[in-house]
C-alpha cells in the first residue's frame, strides 16, 4: 500500500463543453434559409476547467446563472460528454463507465425529483434499494439511521406528490444515499426551503461528510450554505474557474459583505454616506478596525444602509452600535449576491 497515491474522488483536466447552435436569422425568409444552410455558432458553456477533489472534501461550487455549474456537474455524473478534456470520478471516466460510476455516486437535483411521484415515499426507497443491489441488512440499517437523522418516519407512507418541499428534499437526500455512495453531487438542494429546513439539511450534510467521509460537491446560490458547510469553494463565471481555494481566502479577497438596512424614528444627523460606524456607535470618518461602512442614506424613508462582513461581525453587534445613534423602527438584511462576489473577485489585481 505504501507509495500508492490516494485516489482522487474527482479529477477534471482541461474540461471543455461546447454546443453548436444554428444561427437564427430573423423573419420568415430567414426561417426558410435556416432549413437550407447549416451555419452554426459555437457556445462555450465550459471553457477550460481543471480541478481535483480529494476524498472527504466538501466543496462549494458557485457562479451566476448560466455560468456552467450544471454543465460541469452533468459531465461529472455522465449525463453529458465533454467536448474535450478529461473527467475522472474515483479513477474512472463517467463517459465510458457510466453505470459503474452510478453505483458510487449519489445525485440530488434541487428542481427535479427522482422519486416515484405517485407512490408512497417508502416505495421509492424499496425500488432504489433493489436497483442498487443494496443488501437487506444494509437497507434496514439505512432505514433506521436516516429516520433518526432526517425524521423520515413521519412521511414514509405519504405519496411523494403530497410531500412539502422540505420533506421531499429530505427524502431525495436519503434516496441519493441508500447505496452508500462515496461521492455526492448536490445541485441547488436548498432552493425554496425555509430557514429551518435549510438548517436541518446543512446539519445532515455536515454529519455525513465528517462522520462518513462522503465527498460532497455542492452547487448553490445561497452563500450561507457555503459559509456553513464548505472549507473550499470554486467560483465559475462564463465557463471558466475564477477562483478555487479556501473559503477564508475568498472572504479576504472579495469579502462577503452583508447589507443591513435600518429605519430610524429620526435620522441621526451626524451620519453621511462614506462615514463609518464604530462598535460603540461612534461616527468615524476613516475606516477603523471593526468599524462598518455607511453605504447610503435615504432621508425620506429615514433608512441607513450599512455594509458589514459576516465573518468578522455579527448582525446584533452592528445593530447595537446603530441603536446607540437613535431609536430603530425597522431592520432588514440582504445577503451578498454571487454577482457582486464575482465582480469583486475580478476587480482584484
Amino acid at each position, binding site marked *: 500500500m505504501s507509495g500508492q497515491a490516494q485516489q482522487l474522488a474527482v479529477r477534471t483536466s482541461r474540461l471543455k463543453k461546447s*454546443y453548436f447552435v444554428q444561427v437564427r436569422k430573423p423573419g420568415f425568409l430567414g426561417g426558410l434559409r435556416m432549413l437550407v444552410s447549416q451555419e452554426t455558432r459555437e457556445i462555450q458553456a465550459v471553457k477550460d476547467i481543471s480541478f481535483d477533489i480529494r476524498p472527504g472534501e466538501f466543496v462549494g461550487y458557485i457562479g451566476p446563472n448560466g455560468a456552467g455549474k450544471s454543465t460541469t456537474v452533468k459531465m461529472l455524473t455522465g449525463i*453529458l460528454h465533454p467536448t474535450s478534456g478529461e473527467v475522472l470520478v474515483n479513477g474512472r471516466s463517467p463517459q465510458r463507465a457510466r453505470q*459503474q460510476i*452510478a453505483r458510487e455516486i449519489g445525485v440530488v437535483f434541487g428542481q427535479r425529483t427522482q422519486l416515484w411521484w405517485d407512490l408512497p415515499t417508502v416505495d421509492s426507497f424499496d425500488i432504489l434499494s*433493489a436497483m442498487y443491489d*443494496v443488501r437487506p441488512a*444494509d437497507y434496514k440499517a439505512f432505514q433506521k439511521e436516516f429516520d433518526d437523522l432526517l425524521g423520515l418516519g413521519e412521511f414514509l407512507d405519504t405519496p411523494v406528490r403530497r410531500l412539502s418541499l422540505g420533506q421531499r428534499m429530505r427524502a431525495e437526500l436519503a434516496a441519493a444515499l441508500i*447505496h*452508500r455512495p*462515496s461521492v455526492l453531487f448536490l445541485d441547488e438542494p436548498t432552493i425554496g426551503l425555509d430557514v429551518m429546513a435549510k438548517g436541518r439539511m446543512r446539519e445532515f450534510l455536515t454529519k455525513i461528510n465528517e462522520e462518513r467521509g462522503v465527498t460532497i460537491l455542492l452547487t448553490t446560490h445561497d452563500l450561507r450554505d457555503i459559509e456553513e458547510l464548505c472549507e473550499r469553494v470554486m467560483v465559475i463565471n462564463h465557463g471558466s474557474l475564477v477562483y478555487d481555494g479556501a473559503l477564508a481566502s475568498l472572504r479576504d479577497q472579495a469579502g462577503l459583505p452583508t447589507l443591513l438596512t435600518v429605519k430610524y424614528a429620526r435620522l441621526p444627523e451626524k451620519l453621511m454616506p462614506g462615514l463609518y460606524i464604530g462598535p460603540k456607535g461612534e461616527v468615524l470618518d476613516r475606516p477603523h478596525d471593526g468599524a462598518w461602512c455607511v453605504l447610503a442614506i435615504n432621508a425620506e424613508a429615514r433608512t441607513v444602509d450599512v455594509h458589514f462582513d459576516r465573518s468578522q461581525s455579527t448582525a446584533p453587534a452592528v445593530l447595537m452600535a446603530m441603536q446607540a445613534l437613535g431609536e430603530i423602527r425597522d431592520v432588514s438584511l440582504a445577503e451578498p449576491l454571487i454577482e457582486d462576489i464575482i465582480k469583486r473577485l475580478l476587480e482584484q489585481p
Partner: protein
Amino acid sequence: MSSTPATRPQSRLLAGIRLYRILLSASVRARMQYKLDFVASATIQAVTGLYDYFVIAVILWKFDTVHGWDIYEIGLLYAVSRVGWGLYRIFCDEIERFENYIVRGDFDSVLIRPWPSLFVLLSRNIDLTRLGWLVQGAGVGAVSARALLRAGVLSWAGVGHLVVACVSTGCLFLAVGMATASAAFKIVRIEELQVFTENASSTATLYPLDIYPGWLRKMLLWVIPLGAGNYVPVRHLLGKGGTWVNLALPPVAAALSLCLATHLWHLGESRYHSTGS
C-alpha cells in the same frame, strides 16, 4: 463503502427480475389508490378503439366480406393488434410518453442510474389502466376464434400461434415506439410523429393488407412492420395462403425490429450526451 456491484450477467439478470417484481407490485398498489378513476379510465380505453371494429362490423354486415375475409376472420386481425398494443402500453408506457422526459429534463434522472437507460425506462412504471385494450382485443378475439373453431377454419394449435402473434405484435409495437421515441432526442416533440408511426399504421393493419396498394403493403410489412405481427400469421392460420414460415415470422420480425430500434435508441442517446436537453 458501496455495496458490491453485481457485474456478472446472471446476477444482473436476477437483479433485474427482482427489481421488476418490486416495481410491478408498487405500480399495482399505486393504481389501486384511485380505484374509481382506474375503473373509469380502463372502461373508456376498453371502448375507445372499438369504433374501428364498429366500422368494419357495419360494413361486413352489409357487404359480407372484405376481399374474402369475413367478420370473424377480420376479428382475429383486430384482436391480435389490440392485444399487442395493450401489452405495449401496459408494460412500456414510459417509452410511449418519452417526450415528457426530454421536455422536462427528466432523462437526466434516468442516466444517473446504474442500468441501461432503456431498462430504467421500461421498469419505471406499469400502467394497468391500459388493460382496457387487452380486454377489448381478447373479447373480440374470443368471439371470433370460437366461431372459427366451430367452423373448422381454425384449429386449437392455431390459437396457440395466435398467442405468440399477440406477444410478437406487442414487441413490434415496442420497436416502433422505441424508434419513434429516439426521434425525441433530436426533435423533442414526437406526438405528431407517433400518430403516423403508431395510430395510422395500426389502424391500417386492422384490415387485411390485401386491400391496399403495393407501396402501402410493403410499408406495413417492412418499414413499420406491424403487418408482420397479425396479418402474416393469421393469413396462414385461416388457410388463405403462405406456409409455416408465416407462423415463424412474427417473433423473428419482432426480434429484428427490436435490435434495430435499440440501435436507433443508442444513436439518439449518444446525441443526448453531446447536446443535452
